[in-house]
């Protein structure tokens, strides 16, 4: 009987597909798609332990309504958006410039490429902790250097004030990721066909015309991808913030990712529904942000 089924045309066609794709898709459905959908379900409930047992109570849109009157959430949204707008702009401008310089083989270009890539290898925890010490008020390398050269007045408590901590977070994450964007753009640049550059030279184009009229248009799809990756990276960043400031002081560097973590598992608020609502809302913001960026940048290419 089984042999008979296995010999049908249908089985010949589908059996291998089910055999190879089945396991990965089942695993994915179980551990990713189900949790994804469950987050939506959670967000309409209060899920809290009552006498040691998790009890789910339906609350409709209450979690979402509460979000808009939660000053810490509003602060964390503000911080994350400032970061996700400022971060990628700075990163793309510098990474593009540096990628061009390395492409044109400035002296020591191999060394630069390797050196700038190293921060990417170490974990966000290491990056965060090293810079937590680097910015330390009393003995951090930055303030110690400023005092040593007589700029003691400039030595601020970088991570302990109202205005500088968010800038520090943006800088540290930028420090850790600009090399990655640079390498991605460099890969895109090396895909530009040499014949085109030769042709441009024969036609008498100067270096600026070659860059703006030929190289950038060809690089544009890669540029869009890298920019969107950079944007997503800031919208979801957790490790560096957690290790550098933990969202403090006074939530001045709180991001949506750290606040979700605190409300779900850190504080003793004991409700998984509320942070789920944050996650869902943020998922929406990321999707809308990415598609707007994508559409806007593609239109730029057509002009």
């Amino acid at each position, binding site marked *: 009987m089984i042999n008979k089924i296995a010999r049908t045309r249908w089985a010949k066609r589908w059996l291998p597909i089910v055999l190879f794709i089945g396991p990965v898709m089942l695993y994915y459905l179980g551990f990713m798609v189900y949790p994804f959908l469950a987050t939506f379900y959670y967000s309409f409930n209060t899920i809290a332990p009552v006498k040691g047992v998790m009890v789910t109570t339906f609350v409709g849109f209450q979690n979402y309504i509460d979000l808009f009157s939660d000053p810490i959430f509003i602060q964390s949204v503000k911080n994350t958006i400032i970061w996700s707008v400022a971060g990628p702009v700075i990163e793309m401008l510098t990474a593009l410039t540096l990628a061009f310089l390395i492409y044109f083989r400035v002296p020591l270009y191999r060394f630069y490429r390797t050196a700038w890539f190293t921060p990417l290898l170490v974990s966000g925890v290491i990056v965060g902790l090293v810079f937590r010490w680097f910015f330390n008020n009393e003995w951090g390398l930055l303030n110690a250097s400023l005092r040593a050269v007589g700029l003691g007045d400039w030595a601020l408590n970088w991570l302990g004030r109202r205005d500088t901590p968010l800038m520090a977070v943006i800088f540290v994450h930028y420090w850790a990721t600009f090399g990655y964007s640079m*390498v991605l753009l460099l890969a895109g640049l090396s895909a530009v066909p040499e014949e085109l550059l030769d042709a441009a*030279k024969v036609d008498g184009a100067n270096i600026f015309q070659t860059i703006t009229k030929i190289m950038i248009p060809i690089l544009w799809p890669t540029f869009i991808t890298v920019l969107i990756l950079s944007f997503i990276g800031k919208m979801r960043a957790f490790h560096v913030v957690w290790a550098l400031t933990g969202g403090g002081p006074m939530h001045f560097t709180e991001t949506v990712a750290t606040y979700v973590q605190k409300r779900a598992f850190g504080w003793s608020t004991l409700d998984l529904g509320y942070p789920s609502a944050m*996650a869902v809302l943020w998922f929406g913001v990321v999707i809308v942000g990415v598609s707007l960026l994508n559409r806007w940048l593609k239109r730029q290419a057509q002009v």
Partner: protein
Amino acid sequence: MNSYPYKYQGDPLIRLQKTTGKIAISIPLIIITLIVLIPFVWMIIMSFRTTAEILNDPFGLPKTLELENYAKLLFDPEIGFGRYFVNSAIVSAGALSVTLILSTMGGYGFGRSRHKFKFRGPVFNLLLFALMLPPQIFYIPQFTMMSKLGLLNTYWSLILTYAATALPISTYLMSTYFSQLPSELEDASQIDGCTHFQTFWHIMLPLARSAILTVTLLNFMHFWNELLLAITMVTDPRMRTIQAAMMMFVGEHGSNYAIAAASLVLSMLPTLLLYLVMSDKFIEGLTAGAVKG
């Protein structure tokens, strides 16, 4: 054009013409490089000093090469750093195994079935959809799942969830690789009487060694450096991964910066050594997914 410090040569490379130009362009680049490297150097120097020295004189070099911090980390049972190292190694190896088995099979399935099955596009897109999503949209129910399965505070909770987050990119990379192999290989082995699985196991998998290495490096680095799930699924101090342990160190041994610095240096050794051995493969792995996507 001549006033510009670049000379266009026959190839696409433009070299700096004058020494002054070379120096002018090198100064900002070297400053950038210093900003990138100094925190590392400082961290390594810190790890060879004592906390008292660090607090008194942030710049100083280690007076004697103080190996005590490392000795304490490795051998002091109260700190027990070796345990966290082993925890991370077990979790990474376990998650890698699950990821590699599922993603090579899935990648083969997707890569070799380009026109052969009807719902390939939507199914593949469903898998790739997770690539751009923040982990926050998955991890709260992942936590309840692990709680219901009784797996919290075990290696399994991290192995299973790490593998899940790694599957989309890994399957995608494997499928890209498999789709570039010539289909004659498959036809020949089928004629020789191999089953689909034999073809996959004996013919295709050995050919994909390079792609498997890429996927391994990419995921190893991700697993070794992960923190969000590590602090969520595991709260038992003995079961912590190395990243979670370092965060704990700063809380508990907060005043002992020298030991903390040594722990950072030790924790980054595995990735750093792999990078030194195969830096090209590493860069390839980290860029492969992005540029094609």
